[in-house]
Structure formats: C-alpha cells, structure tokens
C-alpha cells in the first residue's frame, strides 16, 4: 500500500488535531458541523442509490463511500463562481454544487445523459471517459484568464476551475496533456486527484512507481499530497490552491490519498481482486468517524444535532426512493433533439419513421 508519506493532515484518524507547519484550518465550529452534515448526508445518498440499483431502479451506480472527505472538503472550498469538472463518482461534489440527488439519479437510471444545467450549477455533467474532462477544465481555465475573469487581482470576482479525476486517470494521455497546457499557460486550475488506491481491479502501483503527486514537479505544477480522509485538510489545501489559481499564481495538482471502500460500480465484484486486508485499516481511517469524534470531544456536536441529522438523512433517502421511481422515461422522439443546432432533414425523416412506429405500437 502506498503510504501516507508527507501528507497534509489536520485531523488524524483518531479525531485529534494535527499541527501542520504550513496549513491551518480557517473553519469555525458551525462550518465544521456543516461539513459533517454534508458527509453524513452524501454517505446516505450513496447507500440509497446503491440500494436502488440493487432493486432494479437504476442501471448502475458508482459508489463514493470512503471518499466523502475528499469530495466535500474540496467541494466546499469552491466559490459559487468557480467551475468544476467531475467524473461519475463525484456525487459529493455534485451535492456541494447544489445538484438535487434525484437529478443525479437520472443519469444512472438511464433517463438522460446530463441531468443538470452545467452553467447554472457551474458543474459539468458526469464524465465517463477517463480523464477526458481534464483538458476541458484546462481550456475553461485558460478562457477564464483570457476573458479577464481570473487573475485580475480582484479576490471577489476572480475565478478558478477544478478538475476531478482518480489515480487511474493519471495514466491517460488527456490528463498528462492537460498538465502540460495548464503549466504552459499558468491556467487558473486545480487538478484534484482522488487516489482511492484502485482503478477497478488495478492498484495504484499499476499506474505509477512513485507517489502520484511527484509527477507535478516534472510538469511544472505545484503538488500537494493531502490525507483524503481528513475533510479539514482537504478543505484547507483546496482553498489555498484555488486562491493561488484565482490570483494568477498558477495550477496545482492535489493528490488526495483515500480509499474506495466499495466496489468500482454496482457491476463490480472487488472480492475477485482484493482480499479485504486493507479494508480494516481504511475503516479505522473513516472520514466521517474522525470528525464525529473530534466534534463530540469538543462538545460541538450534541445529541440533538445528531438525531436531527439522522432524521434528515432518513427523509433524504425516502425522497430519493420516491423521486427515483417517479422519474419519467424520456419521450422516445426526444432522441432526435439537439444532435445539431438547427433542424436536419435526415433526422426529421427518421423522427417521422419512429413516430409512425410508435403510433402503430399504440394502436
């Protein structure tokens, strides 16, 4: 197992604060409680979606369990004006960007490819092709700079972009090329790599002989390795990297060291390729437990908050169950929409053909 060498950590796995020579948390108690709430709710969201898949309501689901701190810590560091490009596992990031969990399910139920308004939420739809969006994010960041929406010195309006991907994506050409572009043009971007140790069945060492963060130096990026199960540290390093990017200080690669506690997707069977010996270790590093212990020990989290949160989680799950089953199937004829910006004669013919088939079926 890739070790925890030189990771930024502000809260250790026992829930004790850690002093870091460079980073400290700017979060007050109510912010910490909010992060705790986010993590508890997205874990519930994830559990519920997994259950819905098992019940046949979803075609597939990619569980995020174990990665709540990396996604919530970084996701909450984003300003509304920033833009995020994420993969199919970033439900926690989507949560932070205000995506309704039922809308997340549309993709997995197969009712639409992209369920939310990307520009409204400033979150691009789930990306399935590994690493492809890292280049889009880099180009978007170049555009933010070129159009004067970043690097102006105005800390209220300058924007940054975050690209999320995993350890597997670090091998893709697109990701490596995006590092080159980002460094060359000093694009205002943060590459947030969740190293969850597994690309389906392949351990991270199949992608790299060295800690992934060390690649940063070779590309001319700033590199930071963070304990991906420490939500406070993830928030701190991302916030700092975003500030740097917005102010024209250039791109950063963050490697968040975490663990995929579940399967790659609901179609996957991890017992085929990992023996579970690491599971115990990573359960002891659970991102939610350590924050709960800390908040309890410091009397920030009380029984009332916890029971209210549990009730909120239960009702979220119920809302997802109902909402999922009520998601309408798309109109078959909608498949012809938005192939092009303008009407297309051939597609019009094909639409008419399908329309008459459907009419016949209805007879």
């Amino acid at each position, binding site marked *: 197992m890739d070790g925890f060498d030189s990771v930024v950590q502000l809260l250790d796995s026992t829930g004790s604060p850690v002093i870091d020579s460079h980073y400290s948390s700017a979060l007050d108690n109510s912010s910490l409680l909010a992060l705790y709430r986010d993590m508890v709710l997205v874990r519930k969201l994830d559990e519920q979606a997994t259950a819905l898949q098992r019940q046949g309501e979803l*075609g*597939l689901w990619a569980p995020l369990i174990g990665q709540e701190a990396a996604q919530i810590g970084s996701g909450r560091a984003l300003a509304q004006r920033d833009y995020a490009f994420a993969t*199919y596992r970033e439900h926690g990031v989507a949560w932070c960007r205000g995506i309704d969990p039922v809308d997340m399910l549309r*993709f*997995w*139920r*197969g*009712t*639409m*490819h992209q369920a939310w308004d990307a520009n409204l939420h400033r979150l691009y739809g789930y990306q*399935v*092709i*590994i690493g*492809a969006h890292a280049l889009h994010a880099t180009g978007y960041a170049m555009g933010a700079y070129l159009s004067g929406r970043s690097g102006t010195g105005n800390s209220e309006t300058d924007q940054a972009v975050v690209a999320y991907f995993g350890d*597997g*994506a670090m*091998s*893709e*050409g*697109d990701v490596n090329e995006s590092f080159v572009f980002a460094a060359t043009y000093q694009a205002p971007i943060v590459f947030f790599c969740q190293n969850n140790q597994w*690309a*389906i*069945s*392949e351990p991270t060492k*199949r*992608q790299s002989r060295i800690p992934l963060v060390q690649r940063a130096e070779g590309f001319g990026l700033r590199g930071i390795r963070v304990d991906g199960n420490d939500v406070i540290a993830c928030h701190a390093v991302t916030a700092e990297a975003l500030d740097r990017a917005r102010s024209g200080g250039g791109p950063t690669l963050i490697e968040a060291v975490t663990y995929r506690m579940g399967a790659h997707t609901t*179609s*996957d069977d991890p017992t*085929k*390729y990992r023996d579970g010996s690491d599971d115990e270790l990573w359960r002891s590093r659970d991102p939610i437990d350590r924050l709960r212990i800390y908040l309890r020990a410091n009397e920030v989290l009380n029984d009332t908050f916890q029971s209210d949160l549990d009730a909120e989680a239960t009702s979220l799950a119920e809302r997802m169950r109902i909402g999922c089953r009520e998601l309408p*199937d*798309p*109109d*078959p004829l*909608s*498949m*012809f929409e938005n*192939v092009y910006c303008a009407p*297309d004669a*051939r*597609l019009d013919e*094909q639409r008419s053909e*399908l329309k008459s*088939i*459907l009419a016949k079926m209805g007879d």
Partner: protein
Amino acid sequence: MEQLTIVSAINKGLRRAMAADSKVLLMGEDIGKLGGVFRVTEGLQKEFSDERVIDSPLAESGIVGTAIGLALNGFRPVVEIQFDGFVYPAFDQIVSQMARMRYRSRGALSLPITMRIPFGGGIGSVEHHSESPEAYFSATPGLRVISAADSHDAYWMIQQAIFSDDPVIFLEPKRRYWQKGDVDTDADLSSAMPMFSAKVLTDGSDCTLISYGPTVVTALQAAKFAQEDGVGIEVIDMRSLSPIDMHTIATSVRKTGRVIVVHEAPGSGGLGAEIGQRIMETCFTDLKAPVLRVTGYDTPYPASRIEEHYLPDADRILDALEKVMSY
C-alpha cells in the same frame, strides 16, 4: 461438441491460441486478476502468468501503441478495449499507425495485433458503453474488421484473428455474450470456415437479410415471422466487415432480388451504405426493389431507457420487408 456462451467461447479460443504460440500475449485494463469486466479472460492470467496476460495502465492509446511495439518485436498481442466507447482515445494509434505499418514499410513490417472490443447497446448501460464504431474501422485501409455472432464463430474467429498477420478489429456483440451455442472445440483450426467468409444461415428465395454481430439474432427472428407468412428469407451473417464477402452476398441477391441490411450503428455512412452500393455495382439487373437499411438512427446513442426504440428490432425489419416485397 460443447455448449458455450460467447464469453466462454472467446475465453477458450484465447486459451488455445496462447497454448499454441508462446508469442501470443493479452493486454488490457482489468483483464488479469479480474478476468475482464465481462470475464472473457477469466483464469488466463493464472494459467499463463502475468507476463502473458498483462493488466495495463489505464490508457487506451498506450495499450494500442505499445501493442504495436510488441508486435514489431515478434509478439502477437491481443488487446482488450474494455468498452466500445473507450476505443476513441486510441484512434490515432489504430488509424494512423497500426493500420498502415505494412503499407508504409513496403511489406517489411507487419502487425499481427488483434483488438477485442465489446460493442453495441441493449444492456441498459450508461453513456459511452453502447457504441457501434465499426464504420470508422472498416473505412480504414489496412485494418481487417470481423464480428462473431455466435459461440461457434467466436471460438474460431478469435483464433483466426490472432494468427492473421494483419491487424484485426474483433468486435464482440456484448448483449449476446451470454447466448449459448454448440462449439466443436476438438476440431482443427485449419478446418474452420475462412475468417472473411459470410455465412448463409437460412434458405429463402424472396429476400436477403444481411447483418452481423448482435443484430444477426434480430434478423433471424424477423425471418422466422416472415416464414410464417410464407415469405422466404435468406439470412446472411456477414462475419467480416472488411473485407466484405461479396461472392456470398451476390449469390443470394441473384436468387432473391431483394435486400435489407440490418445493423445497430447509425445508417448514414454505415456498413449498409457500402453493401448497398456494392450490390448495385454487381447485381443491379437482378434487383427487384431498392436495397433498404434498418439501422440505428443518426443520433448519438440515446439514454438507455429509450434504447429499445433506437435498436433495430424484428418489427422494423418486417416493415422494410413489406416495402421491398410490394415495390
């Protein structure tokens, strides 16, 4: 004779090729310990070692590009692309490099590479998991493109592809992966039907129904319905998309005078267009009706909840049949 699924037939074909030639090696994402996401390579790493069944880094261009280098150095790489939609990052290595190595080296260098790609829709999957990319490859000189529609062909054609000295794109009909069929695994490879020959599956004199891959079963269903109505259908499984076995097709068309081509990929610029044109060039005076196509529509693959309306089905084929019969 064994009853095998297509998955198991390919697995056994791979095993036999690996046993026959120590230069055959497998490479791809998750093909080793996991045995591939569809379990096509299950057990092979254990049997042949991780030097012959290689779990690659997550980089499709890297997989194909290094397979080219391995082939230049005497190996017969069989690479797996996990899903059809993941082949595009490797497009340059396939089209600009692999396809033309023999040509540009004036025959000095050959690339005996097999690229296995599960293709097509119908499994209720998410975006980029249901593509039919065959036309890109069949339009590329230097590549051979084949597809097995049943277990028997899967077992033999994977071996023929591996021992071909040209690069072969081997398209696996993923929604038929679990379909069972008889395979005579004791036979000799040399006795198998030639890799580039089409296969006539049913005998009929009224219309020729040409397909390949996952829609061969659909064509057979339609033929059965038509037969019940007294219309005789000759179903042809093309098996090879590049080259196209025009001899078998033309022989049938001369008999029936009517043709429908069925495939899942979008119609425009698809294999149906090529076949229709070739029939016009060779059998124009035999035709009693225009060649029709029943294909996926010219849209990106739709969301899975409506994919059944995108995929050609027996009803759409019968509609086309009505048209050619009443022309």
